[in-house]
């Protein structure tokens, strides 16, 4: 039985990937595409927060909101000018995939040029640790957990009790019927892309104090949240949440037990899941 510290770590891991995975699934369920650039929005969000705090001296929540707005807008631009053009009839999923993959290079290169090569950090934000006897947890990580809870609740409310949310869910279930009921699917996907990227940016913001900030920090979270949504089932929001919880705990427990083999185990697990039950644990099977 791993020590409590590992389980806490697993919980934090799950929270880290949950917000990102949620955003990805949201985008997937409306636009029907995997946004491979998601990790880079996470990275950009972290940078915005960094400069918000280090340069402009704003408090963390404020700069997180700002980064959510900015990066959400950026995501909308990407949707408007790139994704929308590549999801018309006759386009396979390949075009969007390649375009978003190319955007990875674009954003990483751009931020590499803008922000320089030195790693950045925000250790001064929420310093200190909460001592729990056998182990201790930093306030930054506790903040991550709280943030994730807030986001999840907020998303639940938005999706269930607001007009936008209802429109989103309608469009997700049946675009045609939704458009017949006067919901512009185009607008909805724009909004959803904004929300998804905003979530990614906020995740990056809340993670900025915890980890190192550099232009390439987006890759691992991207892959991890991708694996998470596959475990949970592509296109299912509950799936995203459960998937990232499973992944988070698996990740730290396996790493604790088997060290670096964890990587291999995760990929194998994903392949098996996709072969046995492609729609994942919670996904509705789309034949």
């Amino acid at each position, binding site marked *: 039985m791993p020590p409590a510290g590992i389980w806490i*770590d697993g919980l934090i891991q799950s929270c880290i990937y949950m917000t990102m995975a949620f955003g990805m699934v949201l985008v997937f369920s409306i636009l029907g595409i995997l946004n491979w650039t998601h990790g880079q929005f996470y990275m950009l969000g972290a940078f915005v927060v960094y400069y918000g705090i280090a340069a402009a001296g704003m408090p963390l929540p404020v700069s997180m909101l700002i980064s959510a707005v900015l990066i959400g807008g950026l995501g909308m631009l990407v949707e408007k000018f790139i994704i929308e053009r590549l999801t018309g009839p006759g386009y396979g999923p390949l075009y969007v995939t390649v375009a978003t993959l190319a955007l990875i290079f674009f954003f990483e290169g751009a931020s590499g040029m803008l922000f320089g090569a030195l790693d950045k*950090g925000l250790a001064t934000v929420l310093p200190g640790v909460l*001592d729990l006897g056998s182990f201790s947890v930093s306030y930054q990580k506790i903040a991550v957990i709280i943030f994730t809870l807030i986001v999840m609740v907020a998303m639940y409310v938005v999706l269930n009790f607001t007009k936008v949310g209802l429109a989103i869910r309608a469009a997700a279930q049946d675009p045609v019927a939704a458009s017949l009921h006067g919901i512009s699917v185009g607008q909805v996907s724009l909004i959803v892309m904004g929300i998804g990227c905003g979530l990614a940016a906020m995740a990056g913001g809340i993670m900025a104090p915890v980890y190192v900030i*550099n232009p390439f920090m987006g890759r691992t979270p991207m892959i991890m949240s991708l694996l998470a949504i596959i475990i949970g089932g592509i296109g299912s929001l509950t799936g995203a949440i459960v998937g990232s919880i499973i992944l988070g705990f698996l990740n730290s427990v396996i*790493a604790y037990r088997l060290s670096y083999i964890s990587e291999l185990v995760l990929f194998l697990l994903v392949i098996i899941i996709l072969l046995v039950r492609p729609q994942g644990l919670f996904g509705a099977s789309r034949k």
Partner: protein
Amino acid sequence: MKRSYSVAIILVIALILLGIFAIASAQKPAQAQTSEANIVKIGLPMPLSGPASPWGLIPTPFREAWIEVFNREGFDVAGKNYKLKLIQVDDQNSSEGGAAAAKQLIYGDGCKFFAGHWSWNFPAVAAVTNPAKVIFVTRTGNQALPKSWGGLYDPKTMPYVVFGSPSEEIFIANVFALVKKFPESKQLGMLDCTLGAGAGWDQVFDVLKKAGIKYHMERFPLGTTDFAPYITRFREAGCKVVYIAGWVGETMQFAKQRWEMGYKDMVVGSSGPFVNIDMYNTVCGHDAAQGLIGQYWAPWDYKKTKVNPKYIAMCREALKIAAQKTGKPYEYTGEIGWVPSHTLILVQAMQKAGTVTDTDAIMKAIRGGTFDTTAGKWTMSGAKTYGSPVVFGSPSALCEIKGDKEVYLTEDPTPPLL
């Protein structure tokens, strides 16, 4: 399909092609200068893009400043004064990119000397330089070790490879220094990325076994950000000291997280010079960064190694220039044991050989020759061990972070191989 559309398409493609040719012509001047007789070009395939790009970017101001300072006098060979020219090319931190970069440098720019590489592409680059008889001064470590040690370096097929920085030996020396410094630690913890596995580590393990030192090795997959499981494993193995191989970001996160997990007494060292103390403090937090141990390359603090005061002055001068150029305080000394000392080896060998073109003669001068560099005065040796007489020595000093300064810790000058 409207007509304007296709016009737009043709326009864009025209633009792309134009861009390509513009960039192609951008390198023309470099080629034009090959005609200039009194310039010795030194190639440097470095990661300028991608996750490894900091290794190319951070030292660059110092590199250029050093060359600038060096060129104020230049160097005389056979009564003719020469200047150095450093050409960096992006090697994309990959074997393919490294080979491509090396070929451009050799056949495009006409470099006859390489002052090193930083990436995982030693074999690919060496495979390009040797047939072309280009002298490739680099470091030992991971792949760059003799076949007899399980490495990929074969003195017979790679006669033009010179190991100007014995990173492997420095690493081992530092490990022993740590063990000496912290005798209370029962076990030495060591951490590296899965990419790092190979001959280098096998050597370290052998030496440690011979010396009867207990160690515990952990490896993390590339891109790991959360080290809690590994820290816990080290803790349970009873490691007081953890020595991390060269990964800056990972080292900082490891230090930060071990601090947050309450293992404040765990000493963390990293086999690499500190990039920028300020960075360590902002990333790890001031307290967690204290006592971090890293390599130390500032020659003015050496107590055992004698470094030519002229070079010390030049290094300080270069640091100043770099600071002026970047407009920020520039304190990265890690480069001092790298391009400067490599260029000095090459230059002095040229002077000995009395030629700047005949690489065979220059290699003859390098083998067994003694060279006075920014890393001290050393004799190329190691014939017994490497099967190749072209390994250099090093001060292999350590420092630790105190406040926002790096302070001299230990130093045990390493002759070529222990």
